[in-house]
């Protein structure tokens, strides 16, 4: 395991100038002189592929049901109506939304609380137990959650947690933990060991190092794993499916699926529900796009 303690020599990204630094204007000039037609065409094509379904989704959600069945699906809605959204909200959407928010927040909180100290230990501890545990955690990266649902269900029921939001949070967090720990540990390994040593010379204990060095330095990575975990929990399907039953504990993904059976050929209502389900993340996206994107890629973009 010695390689893990060797500070990595400047690999590719390290030598690069900071984003938006001096390199940017020069590149802009260069690229402006020779537009990349091929990639531009591909990008435009992909834009159509992305945009048409999304347009269809929003446009259809504004149609009346009778119009949906007769009109061209890509024509603009003749008499836009919010009736479908009303149907969806009356159908219990808000409860599902609140459940989803609770599950997501709790999962992120749990994962961060567990992963940060673990990553610190993995990055800095020489304990073989820790390194073995980390290897096990990494092996867990690819355990498909659905392979374990039967025993997980069994355990959750034994713990008298069946049909509660906690039941969703626990296994979801467990399966998000390997990625989170890996990303955090990688980022902490990039911290020059001199910084740790400086703290040590100041007589700081490991907890103080965690608070005053690790936490601030790992902030971008924490953002990354928070977003990653949040998306996992937000989109989770199989655990809610198996571990909850009642409407009181239904989360958004299951709510959507349930709407499909409930609405039948009322595609506009279903698509209104789909659109609404994306709205919270869309708002986040508008508020903190840069934050969200850099968070999304910070850990993996090496």
């Amino acid at each position, binding site marked *: 395991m010695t390689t893990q303690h060797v500070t990595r*020599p400047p690999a*590719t990204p390290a030598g690069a100038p900071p984003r938006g630094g001096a390199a940017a204007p020069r590149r802009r000039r260069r690229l402006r002189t020779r537009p*990349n037609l091929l990639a531009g065409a591909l990008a435009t094509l992909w834009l159509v592929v992305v945009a048409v379904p999304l347009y*269809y989704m929003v446009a259809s959600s504004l149609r009346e049901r009778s119009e949906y069945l007769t009109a061209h699906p890509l024509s603009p809605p003749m008499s836009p109506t919010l009736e479908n959204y009303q149907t969806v909200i009356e159908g219990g959407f808000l409860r599902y939304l609140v459940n989803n928010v609770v599950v997501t927040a709790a999962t992120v909180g749990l994962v961060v609380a567990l992963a940060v100290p673990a990553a610190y230990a993995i990055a800095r501890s020489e304990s073989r137990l820790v390194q073995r545990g980390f*290897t096990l955690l990494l092996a867990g*990266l690819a355990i498909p*959650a659905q392979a374990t649902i039967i025993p997980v269900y069994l355990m959750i029921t034994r713990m008298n947690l069946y049909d509660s939001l906690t039941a969703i949070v626990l296994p979801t967090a467990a*399966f998000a933990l390997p990625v989170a720990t890996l990303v955090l540990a990688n980022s902490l390994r990039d911290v020059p060991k001199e910084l740790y040593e400086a703290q040590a010379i100041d007589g700081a204990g490991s907890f103080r190092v965690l608070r005053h060095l690790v936490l601030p330095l790992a902030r971008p990575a924490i953002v990354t794993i928070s977003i990653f975990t949040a998306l996992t929990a937000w989109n989770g399907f199989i655990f809610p499916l198996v571990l909850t039953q009642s409407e009181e504990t239904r989360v958004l993904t299951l709510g959507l699926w349930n709407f499909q059976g409930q609405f039948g050929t009322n595609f506009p209502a279903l698509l209104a529900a789909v659109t609404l389900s*994306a709205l919270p993340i869309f708002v986040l996206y508008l508020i903190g796009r840069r934050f969200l994107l850099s968070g999304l*890629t910070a850990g993996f973009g090496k």
Partner: protein
Amino acid sequence: MSHTAHHRPSAWYALPAFGFFGLFAVLPMILVVYLSFTEWRGLELPALTGTDNWSRLFGDPEAHASLWRTLLFTVLAWAAQTPIALLIGVWAAGRQRNRAVLSSLFFLPLLLSTAAIALLWQALLDPNFGVTQAAGGPLADLLFLGDPAIALYTVVFVLTWQYVPFHTLLYQAAARTIPASLYDAATIDGAGRFKQFWHITLPQLRYTVVTSSVLILVGTMTMFETVLILTGGGPGTATRILPLYMYETGFAGFEMGYASTMAVLLVLFGTALSLAVIRVTRFRKMSSQQEGL
């Protein structure tokens, strides 16, 4: 070194995470392995049957077919997503204003959950009321979800639609860190755009390619609800991947022991992939050390 050793964090920092992971991920795995050697149909307790399930698995053509489909899915998803995400990501890394606007649009599918995307595409491709029907012409004749020869590719396409944005972001971020001086030098040498891409961009992005590929491979192998919602494994068994077959065997057919056997098989493949991840990570460190020399 020794004077810093006692300032290193104790193993206790990692134990809550390991314990939690052990309880909710490792222990269920152990239980699944145990169940794979039992017959268990629900009303009674599991009864040990030795390797019966395993010999059945090796002789079950449906299991072979669904395993093959899972692998095919994984490879196709990788082959579809990687080039698109790579090219668009590199393109979007440019600082032009129109690129910034476009790439913010590319991001939009990421706002939707997997279930939402599957339901959206199911509506879009509905054989009677979908967009392809309204489009008419050859599109209307293609049964995207109803033709066994096409459905698998449709699912791969939907997965691509869903995940390309994320991987585009990875490539975009990585491409922005490539020193412009490399390109400038190449331009002076008279290298064309294709040559620059091949000899500068791609090598510079190789770690991103590895990361992105691993995420795609693991993600597709564990993919489940897209197929469940979009095709239910059909038509016939055309899209019945191993996780779904396991699911049907266990949860509709009540053969929980046999289903557990498939779960173990799935985990074996997943772990093999995971170990590959670790190896690649180590390889990456070694090779970067060599570069440093």
